[in-house]
C-alpha cells in the first residue's frame, strides 16, 4: 500500500510499504478515509522527537471504514464508519478505567525509552515515534487499530467525514484543556495558538460557559477563522503587547484559565526567542517554552495554566517563582480522547461544534509532502492539510 513516511529531518515522502495485518485478536484494520496533519507532527519533522527511523509511517488523527476485525472485536464490523483516538488505550488498566487514556499502562511497546526520559511511560500513539510504541501511522491506505473496541468510535450518520476526522485528536485535545483546566461559567480564558487545537480549546471554553475567550497568534488568517467560526476575541502578538491587552480585558486581574496550544517550537519576536534558539542548538534545552512562560506570567493569581502543546524534554528560564507565588495550578496532558469523543460527535451532529473550516487543504495522499510543507510554513493560509488516501 501507499503511505506517507518520515525519511529524515524535514523530509517526508509517499512510499510503498507492507499492508498492516491483524496481530492481536482485538485489532481491526481500517481503510483510512481521511487523515490530517497535526501540529504534533511538526515536532517529528523538525527532529524535536528523535526516536524515528527512516520509513516510519506518520499520521495519528484519522477516520475511515472498518474492513477487517479480529475475533475479540465485538463493537465493530466491516463496513462501519469510525473515528479513532490518536492515543491507544487498552481500556482495562487503572488509567484507562479512570478515563486517563493517554496514560495507558499496556500499550507502549518500548516503555524503557520514556521511563528513562520522563520517569514513566505514557500509552502508545499511532505514527508518533518509537518512544511512543512505534505504531504505524494513519497517513496510509490502511492502518491497524489495536484494542479496537475501545479506540475506534462509531460516527453518527449526521456527522460527515470531514467534521468527524477532527474528533480523533484536535477536538478532544481542546476540550480536555477547558475541562481539566477547570473552566467555569463567567471565566475569562486566554488561549495561545490559533491552530486547530487552540481553536478547539477556545470553542470548548465557550461551551463550558466562559464569558470571554481570547485567542493569541500572529497569523491573521488563523485569528480570522477563530473570530468567524466561533465569535472569539483575538490578539495578534505581532502588533499588540499581549500582557497589556489581557490586563485591559480583565480589569487588571489576568485570565482565570490560560491554555497553551503552541508547543515546543513556539515563536516570538523578543530576545528570548534568540536565547532559546541558541540554548536548543547547544542542547542545553530541548524545547522552547515561550508561550508557556507568557501564560504563567499573565495568568491571574490563583488561576490555572493548562499545557496542551507538546514538549519532549527540558526547558530553560521556567518561571517557577510565578507559579509558586501566584498560587497557580499548572497542568498538562496528552489527550484522553476516548473520554470525550462520543460527546464531541454528538455536539458536531447538533451543530454546536464545527470543524470543517480547519480543513483548509484536502489533498490526495500522494501530495503528502506538499501538504506538510504548506502546513509547516503556514503557506496559502493553511490551517490543516487533510489527506485522502
Amino acid at each position, binding site marked *: 500500500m501507499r503511505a506517507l513516511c518520515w525519511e529524515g529531518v524535514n523530509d517526508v515522502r509517499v512510499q510503498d510499504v507492507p499492508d498492516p495485518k491483524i496481530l492481536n485478536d482485538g485489532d481491526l484494520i481500517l481503510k483510512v478515509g481521511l487523515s490530517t496533519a497535526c501540529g504534533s507532527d511538526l515536532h517529528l519533522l523538525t527532529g524535536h522527537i528523535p526516536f524515528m527511523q527512516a520509513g516510519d509511517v506518520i499520521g495519528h488523527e484519522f477516520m475511515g471504514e472498518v474492513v477487517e476485525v479480529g475475533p475479540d472485536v465485538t463493537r465493530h464490523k466491516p463496513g462501519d464508519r469510525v473515528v479513532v483516538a490518536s492515543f491507544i488505550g487498552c481500556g482495562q488498566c487503572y488509567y484507562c478505567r479512570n478515563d486517563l487514556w493517554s496514560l495507558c499502562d*499496556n500499550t507502549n511497546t518500548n*516503555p524503557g525509552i520514556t521511563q*528513562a526520559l520522563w520517569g514513566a511511560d505514557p500509552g*502508545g500513539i499511532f505514527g508518533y515515534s518509537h518512544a511512543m510504541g512505534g505504531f504505524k501511522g494513519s497517513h496510509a491506505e490502511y492502518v491497524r487499530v489495536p484494542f479496537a473496541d475501545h479506540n475506534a468510535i462509531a460516527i453518527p450518520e449526521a456527522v460527515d467525514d470531514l467534521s468527524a476526522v477532527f474528533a480523533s485528536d484536535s477536538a478532544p485535545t481542546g476540550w480536555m484543556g477547558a475541562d481539566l483546566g477547570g473552566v467555569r461559567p463567567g471565566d475569562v480564558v486566554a488561549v495561545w495558538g490559533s491552530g486547530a487545537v487552540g481553536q478547539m480549546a477556545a470553542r470548548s471554553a465557550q461551551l463550558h460557559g466562559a464569558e470571554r475567550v481570547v485567542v493569541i497568534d500572529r497569523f491573521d488568517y488563523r485569528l480570522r477563522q477563530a473570530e468567524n467560526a466561533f465569535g472569539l476575541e483575538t490578539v495578534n502578538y505581532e502588533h499588540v503587547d499581549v500582557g497589556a491587552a489581557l490586563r485591559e480585558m480583565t480589569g487588571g486581574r489576568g485570565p482565570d484559565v490560560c491554555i497553551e496550544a503552541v508547543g515546543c517550537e513556539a515563536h516570538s519576536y523578543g530576545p528570548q526567542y534568540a536565547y532559546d534558539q541558541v540554548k536548543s542548538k547547544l542542547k542545553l534545552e530541548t524545547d522552547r517554552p515561550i508561550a508557556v512562560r507568557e501564560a504563567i506570567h499573565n495568568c491571574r493569581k490563583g488561576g490555572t495554566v493548562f499545557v496542551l502543546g507538546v514538549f519532549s524534554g527540558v526547558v530553560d528560564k521556567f518561571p517557577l517563582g510565578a507559579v509558586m507565588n501566584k498560587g497557580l495550578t499548572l497542568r498538562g496532558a496528552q489527550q484522553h480522547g476516548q473520554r470525550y469523543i462520543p460527546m464531541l460527535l454528538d455536539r458536531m451532529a447538533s451543530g454546536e461544534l464545527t470543524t470543517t473550516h480547519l480543513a483548509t487543504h484536502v489533498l490526495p495522499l500522494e501530495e503528502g509532502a506538499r501538504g506538510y510543507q504548506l502546513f509547516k510554513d503556514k503557506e496559502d493560509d493553511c490551517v490543516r492539510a487533510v489527506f485522502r488516501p
Partner: protein
Amino acid sequence: MKAAMKAVAATGVGAAVVVGRRMTARRRALRRGRSDHWLAVTVDRPLDAVTGPPRLPGPMGELRGRVDVRFRPAPGGRGTEVLAVPKDDDVSREDLRVALRQMKSLLETGTVIRPDTPSTTHPGPAGRVLRAVIGKSAGEGRL
C-alpha cells in the same frame, strides 16, 4: 546497548542524550551493587484475582522457582502489587522486567499488545542504532 545509546546520543538530539545518561546511570548504580531491590508492578485487579488461577501467566510462569515473588494489596484498593527478584544470576533483571510487564498486561487485558514489526523496510544507519536501543527497551526502565 551502551554503545548503541551513545550513538543515538551522538546524533546530537537532546532528549536522546538525556535517555542515554539515565540508562547509563542506572547501569552504573547496578554495578555498584545496588541491584538487589525488588522489581514491582501494580496490577489493577484485586489480590484474589491476581493470586488465583492463572497464577503468574506468561513468561512469569516460566521463571517460577527461579525468582522470589510477593503479592500485597495496593493501598486504597487500587489493585495488587506484585514484587519479584531473581534468586540467582540465571535470571536477568531485564528478563524479569519483561515478564512482570507481560504478566500485568495479560491479567488486565488478556493479551500483550504486539508492536508493528518490521516498523520500516529501510531504517537507515541512525534508524538501525535506534533499533538496537528499542530491542532492549522492553527490558529497561524504572520498574
